[in-house]
Every structure is written in structure tokens, then in C-alpha cells.
């Protein structure tokens, strides 16, 4: 490896003299891109990676601000209609020209059976072509954050898809037809995928015909290798074989700091971690209290909240890298309210008093469900909280299990089988409505609302506000409503918010990169060799 390091150094020197020199960049993540088909899986890492290859009508920049993408501008002509001007002069990697037909085609493709993007495509009722570079989008309901959603809905080339029989999203269930688009790509992004072996490596090469000359990157060739084992991933960075890895285990930060030529890169993620409690069953599934559900009593929920020292967990378990939170949405999210963001005060005496008032002076026992391979230090956080709760008489039994078992039990299809659980939520649209709709509003199986409201919290006013903010376009009114709902849910102790999970990357000194708060690596921002 010393040889190639020398070559790299040489290349870096050349790069300083001539900025257009070839630059290689190697990076690693704990898992692989699941599919190359941009409509087959709605998952943050896969879509984030594919956003280097495919693009939507709009893009997020490094600060998660909305920027024009394949659309140059948009305006709402009524609450449900959008006039969108498309970018001219954009070509797909295989040479096709981007226009309105591709947008309409992609929207229809997003609604086909194998699509996991039906949620986004389904917001749209119709798209009318006003010209080759102008369209009118009509949504079913007023939806002010349509363009935020469109950042993760990628546009494919109609002609290419038709030629290759890829007009429908690749489906997982048909092993005879894997889908051309699941193996090949043809986007408008700055990089094209030139080689791929699933689970082993994926090669990105710079697309010379990219429409935007202003992107920072000087990378011409990038290689992505998924490395599952954290120790191996960290070693690959320290030995200089990788330029960037993520995530880095929090306990390895000091190792990266002491190693030469690399450094940890950290910041608050948009994901808020919290504890939830079953407040809907008449008797808890896993508790010593029989015949009633103590969690229905707000005093008990408050007692739990006041017994957990969020600051201590952030300082000790998360090594100071987590930002304590008081509400379930992060500062980057539209609708965030700083005045509500102080964590519940740590006060064991108050906690004991509340428990006594509620009729549990001696506490009770309960099971805390927790994943052990999904979030940063997930199991350790649960164990720490359990020991804090034991000081006020709550005897907590922590059950930590692998994510597929955990989510299988916890989510709707498993029947919300928990009494007390640990979870994190990232609003994909970076808007409060996504969090409200999924985890805060009352559960409704018909509309799909509250599907991840595992504890079954239900406050009629909060549910009403959730519906209103879906279509409220006045930003001030909308913020007032969001703050009201956040305040209500906080007073109800709907959840015990903990903190924003820290992003944890390890980066070589020869690389500069913008770390986005949704943990997405945008190759557009990667600059190699000073």
C-alpha cells in the first residue's frame, strides 16, 4: 500500500498544478446499495447514494436547503397545482435528452407494482405537459412540501427504459425478471456507475456531460466498498486504503484522532432518538402491573421522563457527541421550535413523587425493548436508562435484539408488541409533518396515519393539527400550529425525546467533504488532495 500512497501523493501534487487531473476516491459504508433501480426501495442510504447518479426535480445542498435540480423553478398557482419549469440542455448518461416526457414517465413508473416510491408518486394526481420544458403538477391534496419530497424521487429516461424493458419498477418477488434498471443505470447525475458486484464493490466514474459545472468535486473515479465489520472498516481508513468511512463507532473516535492523516467528522443527525410507551392497551404486555395500564397515566409517563438523565447519557454513553432534545423533531427540520427543545428535567425525587401520586409508591417492573444493531450505541443507551429508572423503583428488564426481529415485533405487522421501546425517527421530507403523520398523530389503519405511533398516543388536537399542516401554506400560521402540537405532546409526555443521534464519519486529511445531516454522502462535495 505504501506504493499506492506514494502514487496518490504524486497525483495530489499534479492536481495542484492542474485542477482537472484524475482523482481517485475510495469510501466505505456498513452496508451496500440495495438496488440500482431508483424506484424499488425508499431507503435513505440507497437513495442518497443513487442521488449521485440519478436526480429529482429538486436537490438538497450541504445545509439541507432546497435547490433547483432538474427543475429550474416552480410556483404554486393554486394550493394543489404547481407550474414547474424544467432544466434545458440536460443529457442522460447514455445520451438521451431530458424533457417533460421523462418526468411524466418516471411519475407513472413510481406507481407501478414493484415501486417502493408509491408514497411520493401517489401525492400527484396528474402531470400535464405544457411544453417540452414546462409541466403542470396537480396533487390530490394541498401539499406545500411537494418539492422536498421530489428530491428523493428520481427521473429516468423514458426512451432508455422502454428500449430495455424497464418501464416498471423492479419487483423483489419475481426471480426470473430482476429488472434491467436494477442492474444498469442511466441518470442525469454527476457520476455514472461503471462496475458493480452486489455486496462487494461499486465503481462510480465522473460523467463529463453533467449539466452543473459549479459542483465542488474533483473526483473522477470513486470506488465504494461496503465493509460490515466496524473494526475492519476503521482499519481500512487508518491504513490509508480508504479515504472516507461511515459510520465510525463512537468508541473509536480517539483512535482516529491519534492516528496520523485522518480525523473523525461529526455533527448532529436529523434523526431524533426517543423512548416510547404503550399508552393504548388496557393492560401492558410486559409488566408486573396486571389488570390496568399504568402508562395511560400521564404522571407515570412524566415520572419516567424525569427519572432519565438525558445529559448523562449524552455525555457518557455518547461521549458528548449527542445534542439533548426536548421534542421529537431536530433543529434542521421545518417546524422546529427552540423554546420547547429543553429535555425533561432530571429529578428523581419528583419522579418518585409522581409515581406515588399515581398509586405506585414502590414502582413496578416493565420490559424495555431495544435493537442492538441499528442505532449508535442502542443497547448501551437502554441499559443506562434502565439503571436510572431502577433508582426510582422502576425495575426495567432490557430485551435487546437484532433489528429484523425487533422491527418485526414492534411495527404494525407484528402487532406493536411492546410496552416500552427505543426508536429513532428521521423525517424524510425534513418537515415536521412527516414526523407528526407517522409517529405523533392517532393511529388510523385506513389512512395509514400514525403507523409508527407504536405506543398508540392519541390527542385529538394534535391529530387535527397534523391534518391541517399537511395543506397549510402560510408559514407563520403553520409554525404556530406545529409549535402548539409539539407543546401538547410534550405536556402529555407522548414520548421521552433523548437527543439527535450523532453522525460519525472518518475522513482522510486529503479529502474535504460536506457532511449532510441526513447522513448522505454527496459526491458532489468531495474534494480530494487539498
Amino acid at each position: 500500500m505504501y506504493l499506492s500512497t506514494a502514487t496518490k501523493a504524486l497525483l495530489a501534487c499534479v492536481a495542484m498544478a492542474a485542477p482537472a487531473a484524475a482523482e481517485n476516491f475510495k469510501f466505505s459504508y456498513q452496508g451496500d446499495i440495495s438496488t440500482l433501480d431508483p424506484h424499488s426501495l425508499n431507503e435513505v442510504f440507497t437513495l442518497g447514494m443513487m442521488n449521485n447518479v440519478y436526480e429529482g426535480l429538486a436537490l438538497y445542498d450541504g445545509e439541507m436547503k432546497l435547490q433547483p435540480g432538474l427543475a429550474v423553478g416552480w410556483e404554486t398557482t393554486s394550493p394543489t397545482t404547481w407550474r414547474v419549469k424544467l432544466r434545458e440542455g440536460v443529457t442522460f448518461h447514455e445520451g438521451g435528452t431530458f424533457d417533460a416526457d421523462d418526468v411524466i414517465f418516471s411519475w407513472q413508473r413510481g406507481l407501478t407494482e414493484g415501486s417502493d416510491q408509491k408514497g411520493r408518486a401517489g401525492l400527484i394526481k396528474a402531470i400535464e405537459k405544457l411544453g417540452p420544458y414546462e409541466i403542470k403538477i396537480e396533487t390530490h391534496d394541498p401539499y406545500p412540501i411537494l418539492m422536498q419530497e421530489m428530491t428523493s424521487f428520481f427521473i429516468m429516461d423514458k426512451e432508455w427504459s422502454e428500449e430495455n424493458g424497464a418501464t416498471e419498477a423492479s419487483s423483489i418477488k419475481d426471480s426470473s425478471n430482476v429488472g434491467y434498471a436494477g442492474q444498469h443505470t442511466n441518470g442525469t447525475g454527476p457520476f455514472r456507475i461503471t462496475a458493480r458486484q452486489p455486496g462487494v464493490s461499486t465503481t462510480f466514474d465522473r460523467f463529463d456531460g453533467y449539466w452543473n459545472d459549479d459542483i465542488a468535486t474533483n473526483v473522477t473515479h470513486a470506488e465504494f466498498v461496503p465493509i460490515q465489520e466496524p473494526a475492519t472498516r476503521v482499519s481500512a481508513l487508518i491504513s490509508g486504503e480508504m479515504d472516507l468511512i461511515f459510520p465510525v463507532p463512537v468508541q473509536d473516535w480517539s483512535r482516529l484522532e491519534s492516528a496520523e492523516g485522518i480525523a473523525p467528522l461529526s455533527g448532529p443527525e436529523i434523526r431524533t432518538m426517543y423512548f416510547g410507551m404503550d399508552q393504548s392497551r388496557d393492560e401492558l404486555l410486559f409488566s408486573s402491573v396486571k389488570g390496568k395500564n399504568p402508562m395511560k397515566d400521564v404522571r407515570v409517563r412524566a415520572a419516567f421522563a424525569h427519572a432519565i438523565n438525558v445529559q448523562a447519557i449524552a455525555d457518557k454513553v455518547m461521549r458528548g457527541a449527542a445534542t439533548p432534545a426536548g421534542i421529537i423533531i431536530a433543529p434542521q427540520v421545518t417546524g422546529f421550535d427552540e423554546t420547547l427543545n429543553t429535555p425533561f428535567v432530571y429529578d428523581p425525587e419528583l419522579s418518585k413523587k409522581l409515581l406515588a401520586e399515581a398509586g405506585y409508591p414502590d414502582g413496578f417492573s416493565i420490559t424495555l425493548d431495544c435493537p442492538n444493531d441499528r442505532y449508535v450505541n442502542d443497547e448501551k443507551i437502554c441499559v443506562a436508562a434502565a439503571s436510572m429508572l431502577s433508582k426510582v423503583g422502576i425495575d426495567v428488564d432490557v430485551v435487546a435484539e437484532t433489528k429484523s426481529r425487533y422491527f418485526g415485533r414492534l411495527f404494525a405487522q407484528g402487532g406493536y408488541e411492546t410496552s416500552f421501546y427505543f426508536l429513532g425517527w428521521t423525517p424524510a421530507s425534513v418537515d415536521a409533518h412527516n414526523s407528526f403523520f407517522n409517529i405523533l398523530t392517532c393511529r388510523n389503519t385506513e389512512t395509514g396515519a400514525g403507523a409508527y405511533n407504536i405506543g398508540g398516543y392519541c390527542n385529538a388536537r394534535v391529530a387535527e393539527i397534523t391534518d391541517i399542516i399537511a395543506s397549510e401554506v402560510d408559514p407563520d400560521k403553520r409554525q404556530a400550529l406545529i409549535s402548539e402540537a409539539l407543546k401538547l405532546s410534550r405536556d402529555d409526555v407522548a414520548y421521552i425525546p433523548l437527543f439527535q443521534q450523532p453522525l460519525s464519519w472518518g475522513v482522510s486529511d486529503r479529502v474535504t467533504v460536506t457532511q449532510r445531516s441526513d447522513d448522505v454522502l454527496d459526491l458532489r462535495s468531495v474534494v480530494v488532495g487539498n
Partner: protein
Amino acid sequence: MLKLILNRLAHSVVVMLAVALIAFSMVAFLGDPISNMVGQDTTVAERAALRENLGLNDPLPVQFVRFLSHAVQGDFGLSYSLRVPVSELFAERMPATLELSIISAIFALLIGIPLGIHTAINRDSFTTQAILSSSLVGVSLPTFLIGILLILIFGVMLRWLPTFGRGDVVMIGGWSTGLLTSSGLRSLVLPVATLTIFQLTLIIRLVRAEMMEVLRTDFIKFARARGIRRKALNYRHALKNTMMPVITVVGLQLGNIIAFSLITESVFQWPGMGLLFVQAIGNADIPVMVAYLMIIALIFVLINLIVDLLHFVLDPRLHSSGAN
């Protein structure tokens, strides 16, 4: 001989069916694969539809029969997490695993047998004590730890060798080999060393014990009395009789290495079948897991068959019993 083979093959079918059944019923406890296959915004109804579509709601026996009828045609379905046919994935990954295990088995034999003989012949010498005690390290340290230590020393501190992956590979037909490029060979060193250390102890001790046993037998004493030279005695007569159990154990051991190289593979991000399996467990990727267990069972069955046949060839006494 033919009867022996047919007999063994019949056994194998039963074994394979049993493994398939066990693998299948185990997988039912692994959790819900759906939450790894869709994004968080996917509605409950869509998730339920996907479950239904994949046939995950059918009773286990129905799923099992459906799996078997596809599997006999070589169709193991699509990987849930990588969305590629499972058979294709294994065809891609198998060369990496076989190269790693076979090379490490060869090294273990090349080093282990001479050391074993040496320790048997020079029973109390200083080198024997040194070999025996240092070989204990191989069994007492977990493979995972050996791998990490080697990475730390040779990859991170000395930077002599790559810490992960296979390096550049060359395709010969459908077989990818790392033996023909320098980066491929360099990448082999650490994982092969890790796996070799794991087997070495066993081989040394086995050869030593067997050899000492044989050296005590009457025919060796007589041979010695006849004045046969010590070298010929040790290496021709004694060693030949030692090899019988060694072959059995090493053969079975090869199956073990192929199956349990998964730890080494995940430490070195070695793109073989074991790594694929480890990744599949994390994602509750049922088709990959079941196919892996079936393939490993098949490999064990085949190795056993070969070992039986080798016995048949090496031990003349089996010829007569086979003829009966």
C-alpha cells in the same frame, strides 16, 4: 465401489432434506424480512401486500415444498437485500471461499505434517516443546481476534499488506481468481494465515499422536530389528500408517473451514459465501440463508464421500469387505 457410492448418495439425499427442513424452520424465528426490504415511509398495507406476494403468509410446509420444487431446478429465488438471483450470488462468491479455504488447508498440511512428525520422533526436545506450546495459541485465540491482530500489525502498523478484500481478480471462465495478480496474492496472505493458524494445532497434535501410536506397534519394532534405516522407517512405513485418520480428520476439517471461514471472511471483508451469509443474517435475507446452509451441507456430504473413497483406495482391508 459403485454400491458404496450409491449407498452414500442415498444417505446424502436424506441429509440434505433434513438440513433444508431445519434451515427453513429456523428461519421462521429470525424476524421480519419486510422491514429491511422497504423504506420507513412504506405504508402498512403495502408491507402486508409484499408479505403476501412473497408467500411469507403461507404455512411453513407449503413454503417448504415450494422452496424445494424451485431448488431442485437450481432456482433459490431472489436475495431480499441485494435483489439479485441467489444462485448468481453464490456462483460469484464461491471461488473466493474455495480459494481461501483450500489454500489455507494446503498450508496447514504442509506445515502441520512435518511439525507433527518432528514432535513425534523427537518427543522431548526443546523444539518439540516450543512447537506444542506455541501451537496452543492457535486453538486458544478465537479466529476473530487473530484476524484483527494480524490486520493491526501487518495492515495498520507496518502497512505491508491490505487489510480487507480480495485485491484485483482475473476471470477465467466463470471463476474469479486472485492468484494471478500481485494485489490478489497480497490480499490472500492475512486471511490464509488466520485460517491456517486455526487448523495447524489440530493437525500437528493429530499427526503426533497417531505417529507415536504407530511407532509403538510391533511391526515397527520388527522392522527396526531387521535393521531398516531410521529415515525409511519413519517416513515410509510409519507415516503411511499414520495418514489414515489424518485424512479423515483433514477432510472433515476442510468442510469446517469452508463453513466457518465466515468469521475470517467477515473480519477481512473477504467477498466469499461466508460473508454473504453473515450479511444475510443481518437483513433476515431468507433465500440467501437457506441456500447457504444447503450448499454447506452439500459440501460436507461430498467431502465425506471423497474421504470414504480415499479410505477405500488407501486401505486394502476395505476392498475385501466392500466385495462382500
